[in-house]
């Protein structure tokens, strides 16, 4: 089976954007039926609220998915280059991933 890194990365980006757009639309509909009773903005809190159809939790889930889309893209690029045997760019992708994890860490703390 031929592995096409370009197609894989393109699909990753599209899935990330459309998933968050879908959640935004769901949350806007939820907003018409109930008031948000959130608030625990941790990842676990957002996930619990999403399951409970809480509008603000659904919106935050969409925002988090959108923010994580480029991070996942960098992770898949690191893996993809590794599969292709392109170790230099796999390493560069991994370094960018570490910088992004640093950003997530300082964002959360």
């Amino acid at each position: 089976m031929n592995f096409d890194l370009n197609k894989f990365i393109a699909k990753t980006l599209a899935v990330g954007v459309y998933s968050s757009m879908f959640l935004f639309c769901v949350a806007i509909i939820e907003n018409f039926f109930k008031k948000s009773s959130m608030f625990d903005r941790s990842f676990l809190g957002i996930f619990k609220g999403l399951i409970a159809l809480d509008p603000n939790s659904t919106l935050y889930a969409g925002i988090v998915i959108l923010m994580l889309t480029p991070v996942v893209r960098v992770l898949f690029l690191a893996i993809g280059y590794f599969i292709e045997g392109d170790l230099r760019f796999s390493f560069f992708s991994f370094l960018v991933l570490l910088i992004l994890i640093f950003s997530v860490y300082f964002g959360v703390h």
Partner: protein
Amino acid sequence: MFEIALILMGILSGIFGALLGIGGGTFVVPLLVIFLHYPIHQAVAISLISIIATSSSVASVNVYNKITNMRLGITLELATTLGAIAGSFIGTFLKGNVIALIFSFVMAFIAYFMYFHKENEQSTSVTQAKSVYASNYFDYALNKNIEYDVKNLGAGLAISAFAGAFSGMLGIGGGVLKVPAMNAFCKVPIKVAAATSNFMIGVTAAAGSFIYFGKGYIEKPLYVALIVLGVIMGSKLSMPIIKKVPPSRVKNIFIIFLIYLAIEMFIKGVK
């Protein structure tokens, strides 16, 4: 009513950004701050989220069509993400009026640059030794395969770090700096430069947005969603507009609008 205004702002930002080729982010912050009196730090946070959405949406098409040079993109991302984190930290510590002043100067520079900039269609030939960044793409307008190589990577890295810092601080994409730099210094064809810059912008904006998210600047998620949906709609709506009205014809009108926004942001800054 305010919600409808937010969607309209998003749509306008998406259309203006696409027509000028500088991304919707450049317009989101000033439109929110000037017309809806939105706090600037929250406007920057919303803008960064909307940049991730538009960048990822456009990048998925460009990556699929192999116009984006992903090797060049991931290399320059090393510099641009570090710049974005530094810029975001600085931005969250600066007062709103200082950010407004910096924004007004950057917008004035963008307007000046858009007016005088001429794109360099020449690219470096790859008849001699190829670097690891050498690539090719099919140009549908010219109906031929274009081969190119990348030069002066150091200059590209320096400008990417600079652009990343401005992105994190002001909530703009930074493509207005990166695209001409890649074209002029790295000798990358303009279409590849634009696609690669767009590819990088999502990661740059994500790096900055985590800092703003963590510091609590994304308080009203519904407003973020409405702006993001508006910007996405605007960038999609701009495609038929671009086909009917060439961007070069409306460029000067938008440049005047940019100058107006720069003046308004300056007034906000000195108040």
